[in-house]
């Protein structure tokens, strides 16, 4: 690999089992279209203790090259060790552009890295394209709680870096026969020098079963659901459709449902095939994270609720009357098909 190669890098975040987080694989998609525009290649960066699973995914999803840094100091994410290793790689290879998932981890690492490199960083992008006029990546991101979109360039500094929200892009087609060039780098950081020490991990009880970002159908409840019992009705509709339950922040803050279900600026960004919003008014912080769903269906008693402005379909009415009717119709239909 040339020392002065002008490549686009995608950070493949891994979880505690060493598997690739979806967002890194999703970013290989815009990574390819952007680097093609510049005649470059897409390089995946994997840092961890055991990286086989993530490397295999990065390869199958179309990376041209994969740079691997392995060591026991990378078994868990730490700002100190990861920023050190990533920075060493950038100094050595001088990539043009870097895409990182806008996850809690990505948003911890990226600014630390950008500042060490004295370069620009655009956070939480929802759109990426190539600005022909200036030859830069145009990073588009929401600001003011999603009320305003900004198109941002980083013209005079390299690398140009951005974090991108999960579920904004679709993963490329998987091709297990695709081969990437593998490069291994020995970069080590002493464990004693990691300044944050893990004392305890507290897992959400339902975390393992809640995959909002991967869900095809989400049925979400807000203040209109009225309480934890109301969420049983939301769950019934989700079950009838084979979907996952989401929630607004009001519902989470009121303790009706755990935070693993929250959709929104301070929760998860989702892009299901169908999003059903029940008793949710459609505040900008909620819309910002679900408005790119393929089909949005709203159920709300208030015809003026902003959610109807972005809904493809809707019912003005009481969710406690609509949902049971809806479930009955689903059951009826499946019944007639079975006969």
């Amino acid at each position: 690999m040339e020392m002065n190669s002008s490549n686009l890098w995608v950070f493949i975040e891994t979880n505690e089992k060493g598997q690739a987080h979806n967002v890194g694989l999703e970013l290989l998609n815009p990574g390819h279209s952007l680097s093609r525009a510049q005649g470059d290649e897409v390089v995946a960066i994997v840092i961890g203790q055991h990286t086989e699973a993530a490397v295999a995914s990065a390869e199958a999803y179309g990376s041209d090259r994969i740079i691997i840094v392995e060591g026991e100091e990378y078994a868990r994410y730490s700002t100190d060790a990861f920023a050190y290793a990533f920075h060493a790689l950038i100094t050595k290879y001088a990539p043009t552009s870097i895409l990182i998932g806008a996850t809690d981890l990505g948003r911890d690492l990226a600014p630390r890295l950008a500042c060490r490199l004295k370069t620009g960083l655009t956070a939480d992008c929802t759109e990426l394209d190539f600005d022909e006029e200036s030859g830069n990546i145009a990073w588009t991101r929401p600001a003011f709680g999603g009320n305003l979109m900004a198109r941002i360039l980083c013209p005079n500094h390299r690398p140009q870096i951005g974090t991108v929200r999960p579920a904004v892009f679709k993963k490329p087609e998987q091709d297990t026969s695709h081969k990437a060039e593998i490069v291994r780098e020995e970069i080590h950081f002493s464990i004693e020098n990691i300044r944050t020490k893990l004392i305890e991990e507290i897992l959400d009880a339902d975390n393992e079963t809640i995959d909002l970002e991967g869900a095809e159908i989400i049925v979400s409840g807000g203040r209109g659901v009225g309480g934890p019992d109301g969420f049983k009705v939301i769950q019934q509709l989700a079950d009838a459709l084979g979907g996952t339950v989401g929630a607004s922040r009001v519902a989470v803050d009121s303790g009706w449902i755990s935070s693993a279900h929250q959709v929104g600026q301070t929760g998860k960004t989702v892009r299901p095939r169908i999003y059903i919003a029940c008793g949710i008014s459609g505040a900008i912080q909620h819309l910002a994270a679900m408005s790119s769903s393929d089909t949005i269906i709203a159920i709300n008693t208030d015809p003026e609720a902003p959610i109807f402005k972005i809904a493809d379909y809707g019912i003005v009415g009481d969710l406690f009357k609509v949902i049971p009717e809806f479930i009955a119709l689903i059951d009826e239909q499946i019944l007639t098909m079975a006969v």
Partner: protein
Amino acid sequence: MNILICVKQVPDTTEIKVDPVTNTLMRAGVPSIVNPFDACALETAARIKDETPDTKIVIVSMGPEQAKVALTECLAVGADRAYLISGRGFGGSDTLATSYILSCAVRKLEELEGKFDIIFCGKQAIDGDTAQVGPELAEHLGLAQVTCALEAKTNGNTVQVRRKTERGSEILGVEMPCLITMTKTAYEPRYASSRKKREVAKQEIPTLDENSFEIDLTRAGLKGSPTKVKKTFTIPQNSTGVIFHEATERQSTISLFELLVKGNILQLGVRYGNE
């Protein structure tokens, strides 16, 4: 214990509306508030002070003169000292330039107020929403960082921080000095009593400008900012959806259901989801 909190005055973005005709933000009449995540940081510091009464809480904000209103609010809630960083060369700064200016100001403040054991920031400011200034400030100052904290308590010379993660939360121990960015806490920020509000109304808030501390001005303001905003725009929100509002919920539901099946949005007999 000596604590610094970086506070930004922001427009209350939940009150901002988009003008349906011009498609621009209607900012007139929108109240300015202390960034909500910074208020969580102040509450967390105040709780540390409840436990360790000889704690001093210093607030710093970079912004126009008007930001002193936000600083006064923080004093009323329990901060001891407040400083405004304001200078003509500072306008138009992106996060790298802002964090650089703040880092220079922090060095000056440490001469005036002593070394800080903990620097708190909000996770993100609700106007820019970048969540970058905290980690970048930590990098400029060479400090350990913990982002997205739900809770922070001191224990000897370490801070125990509960941090939000994708799977729940984790408790990290980090030695002081360090920088912590706070997300929304489970507890609500406390209110100021009217007596306290009257008391702090007279408290002086010094302003530091580009001549008050050492700084390389080529790294500040617009020219010190690597990112450039090319344009801003709003997404027009016109309702084009099919909304049913029939005599009964039953009728509306039947109409919607038929449409969904006809449009192949609901494919019956096939179940979607996570297998």
